């Protein structure tokens, strides 16, 4: 139980001695109880690749070697490099082991932990420089440009241990607010920092709080939007899994600032690890008196609960989310009234997403100026992006606002693999748009992306190479929004379905030039007329690809060709009968029974060749893959 700020400070100093190894600066002044800290990623990605087995094996081997008192093994949240999982870091060296196998554990324990020799062969190759020189993770391309604010504890602490959070200055910001600042001062600091919402619209967080604070009500609420729905974006999950106390602290601060005593976190049920950790964190915060009545003896009360989503993308929209928390179909409500005036259960409510909240404790502790010193004039601080698609390093990165797309793709992301060229990046998922190669030097922030018809959204960034058909891509996102439309308002319910039908017609080679114009008109109508953000942004992928890749649409419509060779109605697979050796692998792999043997035996071959019945062919490409060696099959 932590009843006073003094008790919090005492605890911090105590625990610091067990974890100081992870922080070179701290290590200089604090004596550490352990010789080594081993951090194993227990995020969703690494857990799927069996990282928990690694933890078991580590503990077993460490016990077998009798060094339990020297090595502390910690399961952490996500490091960001999910493609390399399972991931493990050993401090104080900072050795970064990637794709760790259970069978390697005895060797690592023996050689590294007992004998003190890093097992270079098992390290992530980019941390091994020329001549076997070992670099720390922070020196790799992927990490070098990152500045971790929202993710500062992810992959550094045990998210299930409140003490580790406290040791990293956890709950100090809340203590400062409650004991040194008035609610207005807290709001002023957040306003001065320039923090804007990280979930989509980019509304200034301080202003949001300031709108809510003066409203009188018997009850107000703080709501955290953790219904991260953009396919491919998972930064909020990472914070919940890696640093749940940070969210709790931030929500309590928001509660203090606006006069709310109850918080809700609305999390996707598809995030079981995040939900469990957050639940545990809430319980341990309560046990420690950091949630509940009279926090730090200041008379401030704040508590919070979790509400689970059940699979509806639209619930990421703030009013829909509140409707859902109230136990209804998650349909959005018209605004105004804004949630700050009439929100959850009809009461004044502040709603922010996870990443936004995660910045708050640091802003309070380090000051508005520190935060505002990062980023661009209109977008301060950092932003977490989920890099995906045709890029070498996929994963989560936190970089200052205003970093150019080129830096993100080429330096941090390691560029487009397989010698292909960069075509565009899609930002903001189904609500966003694409940034073409010609604009690769765009500094990424809210306004710059909006200016090119795009949006940061929650921070999904999907890289596309020359093999991507932009019409098909637009169709893919629109299929998603059609599926997720709640059905309440006419433009979204019917409009985007009709839009998809026109797009579909175009990808089938049945479109006309008038269709392109009609589609554009319909897009603008849907944007202007839809009830909520889902509908208002649903046409963005279409509008944005129309803006930068109109020629591709025209090719589909006029030439009846898909330049990227993706839209299958516009493709034909053919077998070169003279190259075919008659092995039959293509026929065997064809799911549609569209390939059969002819009676033609090519000169020099022993078996009759095959042919594709184009009527039956579904253009899946399975035959092409099966004929990679002989290359007798091609797309035309």
């Amino acid at each position, binding site marked *: 139980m932590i009843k006073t700020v003094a008790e919090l400070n005492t605890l911090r100093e105590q625990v610091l001695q067990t974890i100081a190894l992870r922080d070179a600066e701290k290590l200089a002044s604090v004596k550490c109880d352990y010789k080594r800290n081993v951090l194993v990623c227990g995020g969703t990605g690494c857990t799927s690749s069996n990282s928990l087995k690694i933890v078991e094996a580590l503990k077993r081997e460490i016990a077998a070697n009798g060094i339990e008192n020297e090595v502390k093994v910690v399961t952490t949240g996500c490091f960001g490099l999910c493609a390399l999982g399972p991931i493990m870091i050993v401090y104080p060296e900072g050795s970064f082991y990637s794709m760790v196998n259970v069978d390697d554990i005895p060797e690592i324990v023996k050689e590294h932990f007992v004998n003190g020799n890093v097992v270079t062969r098992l390290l992530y190759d980019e941390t091994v420089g020329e001549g076997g020189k070992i670099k720390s993770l922070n020196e790799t391309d992927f990490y070098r440009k990152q500045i971790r604010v929202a993710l500062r504890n992810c992959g550094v602490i045990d998210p299930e241990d409140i003490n580790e959070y406290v040791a990293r200055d956890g709950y100090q910001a809340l203590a400062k607010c409650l004991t040194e600042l008035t609610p207005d001062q807290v709001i002023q600091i957040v306003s001065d920092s320039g923090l804007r919402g990280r979930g989509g619209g980019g509304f200034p967080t301080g202003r949001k709080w300031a709108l809510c604070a003066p409203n009188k009500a018997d009850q107000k609420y703080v709501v955290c939007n953790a219904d991260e729905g953009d396919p491919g974006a998972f930064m909020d999950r990472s914070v919940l899994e890696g640093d749940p106390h940070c969210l709790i602290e931030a929500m309590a601060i928001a509660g203090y600032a606006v006069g709310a005593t109850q918080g809700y976190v609305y999390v996707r049920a598809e995030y079981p690890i995040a939900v469990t950790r957050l639940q545990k964190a809430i319980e341990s915060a309560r046990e420690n008196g950091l949630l509940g009545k009279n926090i730090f003896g200041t008379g401030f009360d704040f508590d919070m609960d979790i509400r689970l989503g*059940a699979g509806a993308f639209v619930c990421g929209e703030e009013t829909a989310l509140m409707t859902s928390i109230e136990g209804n179909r998650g349909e959005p409500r018209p605004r105004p009234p804004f949630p700050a005036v009439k929100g959850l259960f009809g009461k004044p409510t502040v709603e922010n997403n996870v990443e936004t909240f995660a910045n708050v404790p640091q802003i309070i502790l380090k000051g508005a100026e520190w935060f505002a010193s990062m980023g661009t004039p209109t977008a301060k601080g950092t932003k977490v992006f989920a890099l995906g698609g045709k890029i070498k390093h996929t994963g989560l990165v936190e970089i200052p606002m205003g970093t150019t797309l080129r830096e993100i793709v080429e330096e941090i992301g390691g560029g487009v693999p397989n010698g292909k060229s960069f075509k565009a990046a899609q930002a903001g998922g189904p609500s966003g748009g694409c940034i073409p190669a010609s604009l690769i030097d765009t500094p990424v922030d809210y306004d710059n992306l909006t200016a090119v018809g795009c949006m940061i959204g929650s921070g999904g960034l999907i890289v596309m190479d020359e093999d991507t058909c932009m019409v098909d891509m637009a169709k893919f996102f629109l299929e998603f929004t059609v599926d997720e439309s709640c059905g309440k308002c006419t433009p979204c319910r019917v409009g985007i379905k009709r839009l998809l039908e026109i797009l579909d017609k175009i990808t089938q080679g049945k479109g006309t030039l008038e269709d392109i114009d009609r589609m554009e008109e319909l897009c603008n109508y849907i944007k202007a007329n839809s009830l909520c953000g889902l509908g208002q942004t649903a046409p963005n992928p279409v509008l944005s690809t129309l803006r930068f890749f109109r020629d591709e649409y025209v090719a589909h419509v006029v030439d009846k060709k898909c330049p990227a060779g993706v839209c299958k109605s516009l493709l034909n697979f053919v077998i070169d009968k003279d190259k075919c050796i008659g092995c039959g692998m293509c026929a065997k792999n064809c*799911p*549609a029974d569209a390939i059969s043997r002819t009676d033609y035996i090519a000169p020099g071959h022993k078996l009759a060749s095959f042919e594709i019945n184009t009527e039956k062919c579904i253009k899946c490409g399975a035959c092409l893959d099966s004929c990679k060696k002989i290359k007798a099959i091609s797309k035309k």
Partner: protein
Amino acid sequence: MQKKISNHPFNGTPEQAAKLEAVINANKHDKSLLMAVMQEAQGIYGYLPYEVQKMIADGMDVPIEKVFGVSTFYAQFSLTPKGEYNISICLGTACYVKGAGIIFDKFAEKLGIGADECTADGKFSLTACRCIGACGLAPVLTVNEEVYGRLTGADVDTILAKYQ
């Protein structure tokens, strides 16, 4: 897509009913917990048939149409039971273009059931799912936890035979 409604006879047990009742009793003070109750109910029964929704509606004192409206809004809620073996065929983009639709139809034909349906003996059920992230193996399906990839039409019989 309209959610499919099961026409299988309900065979909930008294134990299940007792569990659900306990959940309802713990939550009925607050109608906003309806979804939480429904999630737990689905955990108990595997799906939310009429009988279960009726218990929830009566217990939480809300119209059953409200429960049904919620159950058909969120993707996670199912109105059909799962078989002993649930065959879940990925119809994500990558799998679909590689003929997952044809594989699906073959299963449907062999089992005599459609999407979100269960065979009369309760052995197999068939679902179409969103991308399971195994696009490299497309087309892909799972039978309960088991993953089968790079499917062709011929695999349908061998997979079914394995679970007969």
